[in-house]
């Protein structure tokens, strides 16, 4: 097939599967039906059955990929809308985000290194609690593999919403600030969707935590990677 037609076909396939899976998720609202998980799996299945290589798929896929950059810039808008909440709770939110990012980086590196995993894997795992588009860029910068990073980010997100509620209850984290920060700083967008089940304020805090984690993580992940001799 001509490259142009192939590109159009893979764009249509991706968007179509995404919309269908999103409808399914909106109807049933089970976390495992999140389109990021289901649509990705279906496309992987499609590629393996049709024997199409990833590079061939990306002839179309890269056009969708290009919207990641502006979408990250767009995170500034909810952050700006929540500026009152942010500035009224500046200390708890800033310190909480910083604590989360630093604990995530330190435990991620030390645990994975002590188990003898390669530097490439450790670097891919490092930005796991940061929203996928930013995590992929960070991973690439510190010598990791972006698509592995994206999958690790997804695993962290699901950990946050599956085990998170019990952890938060056990630690008596029950204020809007505590809950929102817990979900947003550890489980990014997936956690923010979960925080909405607690309330609008929890979700707002979580979305602020997610955006700030992405900013702090971009500064600190390369620094920690360097400190622990990954780069």
């Amino acid at each position, binding site marked *: 097939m001509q490259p142009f037609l192939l590109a159009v076909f893979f764009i249509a396939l991706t968007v179509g599967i995404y919309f269908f899976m999103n409808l399914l998720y909106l109807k049933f609202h089970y976390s495992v039906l999140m389109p990021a998980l289901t649509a990705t799996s279906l496309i992987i299945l499609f590629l393996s059955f049709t024997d199409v290589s990833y590079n061939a798929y990306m002839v179309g896929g890269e056009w969708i990929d290009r919207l990641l950059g502006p979408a990250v810039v767009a995170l500034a808008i909810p952050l700006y809308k929540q500026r009152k909440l942010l500035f009224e709770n500046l200390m708890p939110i800033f310190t909480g985000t910083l*604590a989360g990012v630093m604990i995530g980086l330190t435990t991620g590196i030390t645990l994975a290194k002590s188990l003898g995993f390669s530097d490439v894997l450790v670097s891919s795992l490092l930005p796991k609690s940061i929203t996928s588009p930013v995590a992929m860029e960070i991973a690439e910068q510190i010598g990791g593999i972006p698509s592995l990073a994206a999958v690790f980010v997804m695993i962290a997100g699901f950990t946050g919403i599956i085990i998170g509620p019990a952890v938060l209850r056990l630690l008596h984290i029950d204020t809007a600030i505590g809950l929102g920060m817990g979900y947003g700083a550890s489980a990014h967008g997936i956690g923010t969707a979960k925080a909405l089940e607690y309330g609008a304020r929890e979700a707002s805090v979580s979305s602020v935590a997610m955006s700030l984690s992405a900013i702090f993580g971009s500064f600190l992940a390369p620094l920690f990677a360097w400190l622990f001799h990954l780069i």
Partner: protein
Amino acid sequence: MKLLVLLLQIGFLYGFFILGQLLRELFSIPLPGSILGLILMFTALSLKLFPLRWVDSGATLLLAFLPLFFIPATVGIVDYFDVFTGKGVLLIVVLILSTILTMAGSGLTSQYLSRRSEAGKELS
């Protein structure tokens, strides 16, 4: 008309992304261009260089579809499936442990600090 406005707004957001990329390359800043763009956008809005409505609906649309945009990159995992075989399963244990510790750390710290500052406000 509405579609044109949306496209213009997304184009505007794209401009900030490009600006972030340029700054990154020009000054060798070790930050993703998109994050630089985010910081620039937040600063520009805070300084009221342009009103929120210039970017609001475009940003809302992009963020609503964010999961769609990272599907192609995530599909790239097909080339790395062997990572999760054998010892690789332990990576999932590391991810789970580290994520829980991150959640506990950020949740406890922020809740403690916000309670302390509220107690302070009531005293004064």
